[in-house]
């Protein structure tokens, strides 16, 4: 039942739940019989730093890090980070991005010039889904803090792992009081992906 090796990059800024997402992902793949490696790379500082995780699943995973140009999917909770790590995607890879900007501190503190983010993102030649997740969650009366599990829901549609296994993995990785809302957000994410896929 195992598909070919799957390489995923999950990224965002500190506090957006990148590490939790990598735990949920890794656990879901493990439960489905894959070998998995998931490596979180977290910069200095407690809040607001760039965070990226390499998640690899397959029959047998050797390196914990993905080579540039070999990721199947890049899941980004933030647009600057999507662009920063975009070179990890393979040509036919899929870019899933939350339509949210967190301006880097080097720009707000005037140490570096800003870039034309939307234009540069637009110029990337990948299949992409850039979605304003907080507004979708708002429509469903779900807090935007569940953006990460929503996006995992979208990503889950590109894997052969059953929805039940995903939800189990979410349940095991979040505290009891937040389970229901996380799973709700996850389901909305799956539905949205389905809808978008049908539109195309």
């Amino acid at each position: 039942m195992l598909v070919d090796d799957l390489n995923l990059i999950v990224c965002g800024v500190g506090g957006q739940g990148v590490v939790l997402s990598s735990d949920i992902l890794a656990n879901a793949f493990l439960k489905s019989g894959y070998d998995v490696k998931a490596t979180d790379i977290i910069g200095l500082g407690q809040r607001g730093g760039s965070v990226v995780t390499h998640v690899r699943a397959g029959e047998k995973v050797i390196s914990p890090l993905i080579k540039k140009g070999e990721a199947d999917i890049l899941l980004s909770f933030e647009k600057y980070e999507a662009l920063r790590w975009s070179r990890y995607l393979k040509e036919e890879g899929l870019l899933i991005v939350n339509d949210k900007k967190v301006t880097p501190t080097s720009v707000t503190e005037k140490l570096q010039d800003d870039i034309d983010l939307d234009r540069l993102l637009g110029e990337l030649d990948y299949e992409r889904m850039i979605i304003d997740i907080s507004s979708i969650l708002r429509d469903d009366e779900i807090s935007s803090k569940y953006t990460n599990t929503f996006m995992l829901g979208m990503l889950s549609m590109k894997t052969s792992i059953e929805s039940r296994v995903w939800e189990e993995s979410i349940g095991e990785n979040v505290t009891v009081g937040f389970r229901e809302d996380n799973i709700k957000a996850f389901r909305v994410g799956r539905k949205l992906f389905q809808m978008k896929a049908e539109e195309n």
Partner: protein
Amino acid sequence: MKKMLTGNQGTALGSYESGVSYATGYPGTPCTEVLNELSSFTDIDCEWSTNEKVALEVACGVSISGRRSLVLMKTLGLNVAADAFTQLSGTPINGGIVLVVADDVGRIVGDDYQDCRFYNIMSQVPLLEPSDSQEAREFMKIAFEISERFETPVIFRLNSITSKSKSVVHINQEIDRPGKRYRRIHKKSLQKTIGNVVRFGFDNYDSPKLKDYWHDFNENWNRLSSYSKDIEINRVELQDSTIGVIASGVSYLYGKEVLPKASFLKLGLVFPLPQKIIKEFIEKHEKVYVLEDGHPIIEKEIRNMGFEVEGESIFPRFPHMLYFTPDIIEEKILGKVKEREEVRVPFRLPVNCPGCSHNVINDLLKKNNIKAVGGIGCGGLGAFPHFGAIDVVKCMGSSFGIAYGFNKLGSDDEKIVGIMGDGEFWHTGINGLLNIIWNNGDCTLIINDNLTVAMTGGQKNISSPLESHSNKRRISIERVCRSIGVDRVHVIDSYDVEELEKVLLDEIEKKGVSVIISRRKCLIFS
């Protein structure tokens, strides 16, 4: 059962399963998690010690009493513990001691370039390096066996990737805990001084009365070297004879991924190097590469054996690169260059959280144009160019000593203020303050007390509020300052900006030593 564990968790599990009695250490990214993890087991005692040197000394005492101990620190912490470490390495020990040391190779999570393996070479201490979490768990057991069999401390080297990377570990339903190990075989561990006096070529060298005390350090190292050629964690994987790769740690996995057809010599026990295996391996291959995170240390040792290997020649180190990635190996060995241009994205500098008490001090310094020397931790972020509030930052606890030195011979109208956090003060900073008092210096000092060690995730320190059921004893910063003779001690709420500013400006004008404790709990961790 299979479980996803980080390298840190694998390390903790392996040491638990090795029957460790006591775990000590000082928090340091990326390996802090090891001790957090160990403290979740009920039948093992853990402590964050006041600093790394003390942590190692505690472990040394535990060893002399015949129990196994683990000591945790990042590489910069080993600098702090270096005196204790080099002394420890010359004496036979009783209970096993394993130092878990994490190098931040590539400065992925921090800001340093150091390689703990220099300490191994200097002190002739064995070093093991796992590649993933399963190995971390297994190697830990071997590390303790080596430590006791050869009566030496062992360094267990992690790095930013092996520490944090989660990989699959096979776990028995019941965790294998052999009980706390006890081993006490000789008195030599108590007799370092005599051991050394006898060793260094005096006439009494052969005296039968003293011979018993002499620890034959060299003989021990030779026994270890011969053991290293048989140990199963040094593994030869012969394939194609054109390319051979000698690798350790996570670099081995990168190499395997990029060069699936090459032969590999994987070093699990990195020091002492298995010279015979290395020689045979090199002779069998046309070209041999060395992949090692950090400085080219294994490579140089192999060159010293008289062999030509490729390493630094194609992987230039300082100041460019001290770590490997699969991409770097692919580019340098296979000549594959990625065609697509890199996208330049502005970087994210670390900042203090909104509302952080450190920001208050930083703003005051800038506003009043006060020169300041700071330290490590969240307070040190004030030195980054986007704040530019702090002029000098060196190492943990160094700012009081530096401020004192600067003010000693400087002019009165160009004084520098010393700043440190509560964590730093207890770690090593208190020594700087004692020195100022003893030498009758003039200094205005600020202790930014957020009641926790924040940068590494909110560990408690000596003056942090005690947790319920804690059996520790809390010590007050202000009482210590007053009792050692600080002329004026002020305790001010960090949010009382007016008062802070008034006192600070007032104190800078005065002679003597003043300590301003600016206190406000960390918004995240306390």
